[in-house]
């Protein structure tokens, strides 16, 4: 018990301390927060090592243990990264307090067995997210508002779902529940809680906060919450519901699969046409949730394991991508793809981490993203064995999405690191160094290393220690991917290719200035990469959809607002401020009351 409660209490107290510490002890606050997050990491490792536990309030099994470990890991990494990145921000105490609280309450949410505790921890995380987004200064105010309305709103729906669950089982302990979807009440209970989980993870239709947040909030915040922790928790809860709490029927699974498939394709299409790398990554953070939901929606062990593994992998590579992007932004003070270019030479470490993570997210073997996607596909095929046609569409959507992901990361890599920068000026020129300092490149390097390790040694490391114990009934592969052998072959292939290239007449390669239509190109004529996929954007039907999306026609928040304001106008019209009108209402009210009571 104490192993679990101690870090949570420490995080609450440490957060309060950091919050009230005077601003002039900036260094102290930073170091103290870093130490706290390191302590929390250690505590998470300790929780990971305890035996499974079922208590009145706490519940630790393979699934929650591995989530807790991941929470501690990302928390420590982000605190390390923030040391330098957040140095330019005011209100540092508020930032670190919220980061520490987020870690503590995420742990609590992951290990709680009591639905009220879960709900409280979960709801508080929405608040810390709101405060963290607000760190971005005045321009983030509208975005934090939108985010919190979506997150807090779905939390309320979740509250209703939990209340229904309590109504059905008359119990507050998750571990005691086994609810079959046999009535509309249990169906709604599942759906409402799933809404909360999906909104946190960022699946459609509750996704719209993620791209906006990614664009404006400070990068460590985006990397910490929408990219990693919120995914971990959202998918954790969904998996928990599917694995332990509910016994779903095929219709409910179908809903999840459709949500997953639509999310994958729609979000990746949006990502394809972005001009800002943070927003592009934000859309991918939505798109990848689709795979996780799809995997869990298959309902078979391999699919769920794939969804969970993909969640972990996604947190790793997306965090890596955001932090690498943060390095670029830190050095160049911009996140617009149009004005970047040619940074590979100046920021080699960042380039490599981005490259690895891009391959991982696009599902290129032997990186981790490939492995988990492969497991999700297997889950879909397994699902296909039981008939139906939905799985075919889903698998097509997933593969199509994967291809488009690769396409959009080619664009990203080209626009930032390859190609030429605007006006041919190198834009990292801010002093002595080009690459960022160690506290900023170390976290992405660790994450990129994990991308490789989890892909190459998938069977030996993550599946054995993390995913395997999380799946109570175990899972089996229908097609094995010999990751080690395959990697060896890939490396051999690359080496051979390189040898051929070096032996051949590579010296004959020449570089020339661009030459267009018989005229010398001016310096600003370059291929920035942002226009790579304009052809897709200009296709007739797709163009219309993009235009609608630009106008936020698919944004549940904007549409809700529109409907609400039409109601408001009616009510405001009725409140005309004239006393006799109001008295007439009272009179009518009395008449109705009399009619209902005395009749």
């Amino acid at each position, binding site marked *: 018990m104490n192993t679990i409660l101690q870090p949570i209490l420490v995080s609450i107290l440490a957060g309060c301390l950091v919050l009230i510490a005077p601003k002039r002890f900036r260094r102290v606050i930073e170091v103290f927060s870093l130490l706290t997050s390191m302590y929390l990491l250690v505590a998470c490792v300790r929780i990971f090592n305890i035996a499974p536990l079922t208590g009145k309030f706490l519940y630790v099994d393979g699934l929650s243990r591995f989530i807790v470990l991941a929470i501690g890991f990302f928390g420590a990494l982000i605190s390390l990264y923030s040391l330098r990145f957040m140095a330019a921000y005011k209100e540092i105490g508020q930032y670190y307090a919220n980061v520490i609280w987020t870690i503590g309450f995420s742990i609590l949410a992951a290990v709680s067995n009591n639905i*009220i505790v879960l*709900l*409280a*921890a979960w*709801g*508080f995380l*929405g*608040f810390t997210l709101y405060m963290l987004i*607000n760190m971005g200064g*005045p321009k*983030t*105010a*509208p975005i*934090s*508002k939108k985010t*919190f*309305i979506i997150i*807090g*709103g779905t*939390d*309320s*729906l979740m*509250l*209703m779902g939990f*209340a*229904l669950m*309590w*109504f059905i089982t008359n119990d507050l302990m998750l571990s005691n529940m086994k609810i079959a979807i046999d009535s509309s*009440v249990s169906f709604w209970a599942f759906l409402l809680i799933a809404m909360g989980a999906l909104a946190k993870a960022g699946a459609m239709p509750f996704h719209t906060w993620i791209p906006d947040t990614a664009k404006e909030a400070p990068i460590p915040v985006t990397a910490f919450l929408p990219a990693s922790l919120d995914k971990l928790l959202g998918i954790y809860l969904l998996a928990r519901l599917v694995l332990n709490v509910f016994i779903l029927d095929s219709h409910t699974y179908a809903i999840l699969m459709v949500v997953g498939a639509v999310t994958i394709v729609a979000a990746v299409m949006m990502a394809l046409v972005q001009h800002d790398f943070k927003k592009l990554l934000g859309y991918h953070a939505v798109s990848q949730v689709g795979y996780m939901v799809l995997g869990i929606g298959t309902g078979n062990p391999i699919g769920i394991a794939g969804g969970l593994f993909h969640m972990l992998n996604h947190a790793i590579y997306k965090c890596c991508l955001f932090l690498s992007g943060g390095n670029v932004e830190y050095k160049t003070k911009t996140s617009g793809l149009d004005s970047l270019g040619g940074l590979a030479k100046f920021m080699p470490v960042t380039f490599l981490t981005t490259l690895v993570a891009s391959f991982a997210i696009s599902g290129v073997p032997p990186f981790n993203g490939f492995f988990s996607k492969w497991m999700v596909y297997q889950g879909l095929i397994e699902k296909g064995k039981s008939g139906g046609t939905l799985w075919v569409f889903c698998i097509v959507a997933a593969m199509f999405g994967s291809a488009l992901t690769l396409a959009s990361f080619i664009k990203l890599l080209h626009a930032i690191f390859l190609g030429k920068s605007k006006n041919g000026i190198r834009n990292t020129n801010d002093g002595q160094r080009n690459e960022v300092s160690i506290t900023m490149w170390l976290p992405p390097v660790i994450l990129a290393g994990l991308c490789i390790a989890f892909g190459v040694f998938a069977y030996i490391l993550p599946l054995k220690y993390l995913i395997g114990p999380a799946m109570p009934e175990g899972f089996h592969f229908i097609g094995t991917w010999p990751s080690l052998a395959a990697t060896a072959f890939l490396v051999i292939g690359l080496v051979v290719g390189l040898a051929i290239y070096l032996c051949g007449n590579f010296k004959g390669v020449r570089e020339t200035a661009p030459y267009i239509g018989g005229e010398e190109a001016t310096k600003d004529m370059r291929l920035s990469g942002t226009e790579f996929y304009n052809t897709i954007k200009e296709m007739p039907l797709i163009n219309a959809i993009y235009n609608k999306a630009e106008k936020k026609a698919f944004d549940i928040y904007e549409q809700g607002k529109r409907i*609400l*304001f039409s*109601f*408001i*106008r009616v*009510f*405001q019209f009725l*409140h005309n*401020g004239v*006393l006799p*009108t*109001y*008295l007439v*209402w*009272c009179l*009518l*009210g*009395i008449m109705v*009351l*009399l009619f*209902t*009571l*005395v009749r």
Partner: protein
Amino acid sequence: MTNHLLPLFVIIPLASAFVNSLLGKRIKGFSDIISSIATLFLAVISVYSVFLIKDSGMIVYKVGGWAPPIGISMVMDGLTSFMLVTVNVIAFFISIYSINYMEKYTEKWNFYCLFLLMIAGMNGVVISGDMFNLYVFLEIAAISSYALVAFGTEHEGLEASFKYAVMGTVASSFILLGIVFLYSFTSTLNMADMSMEIARKGASCIVLLASVLFLMGFGLKSALVPFHAWLPDAHPSAPAPISAMLSGVLIKSLGIYALIRIFFSVLGAEPKILSIMMVLGVLSMMVGVILAIGQWDLKRLLAYHSISQVGYIILGIGLGTPLGILGGLFHLLNHSVFKSLLFLNSGAVEYAVGTRDLEKMGGLREKMGVTANTSLIASMSIAGIPPFNGFWSKMIIIAACVEAGHFAFAFCAVIGSILTLASFMKVQRYAFFGELKSTLNQIKEAPFFMKLSMIVLAVICVAGGLLLLPDVSKVFLGPARDAVLAGSEYAKDVFAALR
């Protein structure tokens, strides 16, 4: 003799109002001190009364030594002491807030005088065991609140006060009419006696008619839709401490408490009346919040939220189940804390910026840290974000609705909660976050006493959830809930306590 404590709740504010009007003008700072001391003392004895009730169950005081059916009585049970704590603790913080805030008005002693009269009225309503006395105290509180709304004597306040007075008087006369009907039916005015008499005579049309009149009258006092229209005018136009007082405690002690006391303890909670209460509650909840979200005037927005939150309270109480009543009462307490805090925040903003228009604010966080943070806490509380107090009571109300099988009401409560969050996000975004307007570069944070009371109320918002801990709730919320649930046992308890 513990029961001599009871009249103090009326005597202290009345006496200090009197002394205030005599000396307040002559001695500078006198009215500040006397009203702070008086409200502090009231707060302390109200908290003390909670422990008394825990030991002795019910305390009855015979005014002038006359035994109840003939004489007037004052009765204190769990519900009463709960309400007394709510009213007097909030009143104390509002009183110290006024020390700085009311500086900008002339005739501060008049303000304190009316303020204390209002407290006397509210305490009287809560503690009275006699129907007609309840009406008299209700009028004392109501009339002083009419005057306080117009205290600024600006165009807006006067108009609002006029509307409020007219509608309030209509309500009061309906209440009086209801009391008259009951008196004609039972030949007694003592609540306990009346309750027994009604139980003996059985159901009658007269009781139903009186119920309708009470529902309307007290419904108007507690601003239930469709009787709410005075509130969005009256609450914003008053000076901020008074807005806080009106929204925080007046509508509750005059409206909700009286509804509970009369319908549960005197008339007996009939299922039909309870379902009407639930419907009115849901209606207020939705209409109030939808109107609130469209407002740009900060205080008006808050006022509409009072309608909506009263809806939650009435919904919880209308359920009639132990859980529902607990949720309703807890929400009543929480609402009075966070809503008075929000009004005090709006007062601090108005004090510094000089406007209530959200569009003219922005980025105040930079300049007014305390106000911004306390208002953030209060906003989170009212929006039902854990771990702040509003979350717990809303959760209980929603769970109670589900428990009773009213899924549609529970869902409305959830939607209302989402919209509440949305509108407070609007407040935070336009007032405190966002770009600092260049015109606001010179503003300063509110003075000491204003900050002090805001901070303490914010702390209560944060820690409020602890009241639900089993040991604490046994002392405070539990007896209040049991008193409501006791229903017609009330009468027997009163007579038992007399013996």
